[in-house]
């Protein structure tokens, strides 16, 4: 949620259990403005909270309107912010292996066994244990959640001829019907499933708008719950892969936003849980 428009976002997200106390809001309002100024960012958004056992991590994300790139920061008290380190894909993979909850102590150590098959005479596999601090795991979790859940309504962003992803200022919001359909929401990331689309399907797409993956191609199917909320003044999408992620969009208005409040663990048993 954009820090200026923290409150309209909160009104639509609160019915999904995402609320911020007045004290948090006041601290955020001040500390994020200072963060935006110190880090020379054009926009800073309150990304959400990852609930640890002993303490919670508040996450904020800054961006400079240059495509998908974002900078993430975390804080325990919404006053002092520290930047989350960049995570190497290999480290991200081992982070994904960590089960268990976040403890709430950034310097907590997790140990992860990784079997690396060595071409040696022996049975060929050595168990390599790497220790990962909770801070790195937090950065990996935020990146993973973004990768699988950060979505925007179709048309909110457009690809300029010079391949620059830009906010579409003329975006007046989806129509009431379109807002209720999963096809009209797209992952805000480098396209993955788009490349494997058949030329016939791609022919029907509008190059300027459909340059990102639509969430209707996500596996497993129905991993997004979509509902009209608050007397259908807003559409709410909840990710079932990352329980706690909520996205809202008010049809016929350019307002949309998302937040994540959860334990930071991926739900791998969705197939059993789906009705």
């Amino acid at each position, binding site marked *: 949620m954009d820090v200026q428009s923290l409150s309209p976002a909160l009104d639509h997200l*609160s019915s999904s259990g995402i609320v911020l106390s007045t*004290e948090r809001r006041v601290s955020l309002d001040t500390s994020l403005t200072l963060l935006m100024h110190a880090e020379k960012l054009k926009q800073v958004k309150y990304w959400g909270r990852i609930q640890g056992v002993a303490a919670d991590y508040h996450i904020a994300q800054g961006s400079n309107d240059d495509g998908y790139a974002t900078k993430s920061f975390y804080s325990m008290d919404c006053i002092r912010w520290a930047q989350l380190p960049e995570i190497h894909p290999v480290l991200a993979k081992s982070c994904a292996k960590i089960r268990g909850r976040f403890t709430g102590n950034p310097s907590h150590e997790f140990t992860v066994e990784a079997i690396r098959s060595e071409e040696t005479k022996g049975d060929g596999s050595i168990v390599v244990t790497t220790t990962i601090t909770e801070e790195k795991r937090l950065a990996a979790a935020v990146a993973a959640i973004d990768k699988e859940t950060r979505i925007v309504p179709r048309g909110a962003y457009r690809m300029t001829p010079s391949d620059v992803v830009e906010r579409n200022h003329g975006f007046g919001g989806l129509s009431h019907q379109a807002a209720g359909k*999963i096809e009209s929401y797209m992952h805000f990331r480098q396209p993955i499933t788009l490349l494997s689309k058949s030329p016939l399907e791609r022919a029907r797409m509008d190059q300027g708008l459909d340059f990102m993956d639509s969430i*209707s191609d996500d596996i497993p199917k129905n991993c997004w719950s979509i509902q009209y909320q608050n007397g*259908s003044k807003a559409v709410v999408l909840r990710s*079932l892969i990352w329980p706690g992620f909520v996205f809202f969009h008010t049809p016929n208005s350019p307002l949309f936003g998302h937040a994540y409040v959860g334990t930071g663990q991926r739900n791998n048993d969705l197939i*059993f*849980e789906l009705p």
Partner: protein
Amino acid sequence: EDSLKDQPETPDNVLTAKARSTLLKHETEIPEDEAEPEQVVPNLLDLARYFADADVGLGEQEMFRIFLALKQLAEQQPLKSVTFWGKIFGTEQDYIIAEAEYREGEEPQPEEEERPDEQPETPDEGEEDEENGVTPLPKSTYKPPPDLPTEEYGAGTNKKVYFVCNEPGQEWHLLPNVKPKHISVCRQIRKRFTGRLDAPVVAYPPFAGTEMELLRAQIARITAGTHVSPVGYFTFDEEEDDGDDEARDNFIVDEEFEGKSLAELLEADLSGWVHHAPYILPQGRSKWVNPNLKGEEDELDEEDEDEDEEEEEEIEPEAGPPLLTPLQNDDDVDGLPAWSTRLSSTAHPAYACVRVSSNRWPGAHAFAVDRKFANIYIGDGLKYQAEPFSPQLPPPAQVEYSGEDVAEAVDPTRQEEEEFEAQMAEEE
């Protein structure tokens, strides 16, 4: 195909608005002030603000709408007290759940226990097969174990009644009493709610009921696991207590309760908090009942139950922690403490309240300050699980009937048949 049917554009929000407008009332007469009239509905907005200070809740406007809906419910039903139990998220719609108690004398009569799933052995079925001269197929003599009796309203898991609706302003549905078998099956499956009460529950082991029963069972489990209160708020009713400690299952609010200090409530070992909901035994009930007792005698009085025991082989009665046990001996969840505590305000702790959140049921919270406390559940209705979920395997296939007169022999090969026919030819 999209998963949401096309809603007509305008009337939809108007329908919701119409439903909500029935809630809005404009009373100007002030309640006469002699005895403080016993409030059926608690001051939900006030509780919601304490929860909001601790970053929990649904926002003031939704909470106020729920408060109005609870008031409407209290007017429609003869209820002594109605509280907001919580909200369970579904894939298509969410559930708003209210916890209520009936007024004295207005309790629903325990409807007769009809036993749909026991196949009545009607003798006539057998005769038809003999007439058409075909020996009847062997009838399966499997008799499923008799269901345990459901606990009546007012005791154990059915101490309170639960109403549910999708949006405040819509019509409340009364959930049926929870059956022990629903709880035991519910513990083995892991299903998300869709938001439609009549949705089928497809799972193994088979759940005998629709989403309505599943929801009621999950509510019972969550209530038993997470309804906590500051120690000393509830005490056992001294007069009624005739020394029989098992029967200590009703407690009353302690008037002289002065409220715990923040420090006590924040104790790391949670000695300041106690469970005030009865523990559910593995057999799905709060009070243990001997399963292989004949179903007929309905009143389960303790004494004669012991004598019968000699006949059946000894079943060790299950026992759980007694009522009002402090939280510290809740066993850990995946190596981490079962509860985490938070102070709601760090700018001026003197005016803060303490929030306790369950790590076993993410989404269950309780707050306490001075003489006030409340419980709430906002979540998906699923228990926290450390290991990936692996559904129960179906039981091994039944061993085939291997009686003496059914000897198996290997089929003769082509070549053996020819030798046999040759041998038969030589004998003639």
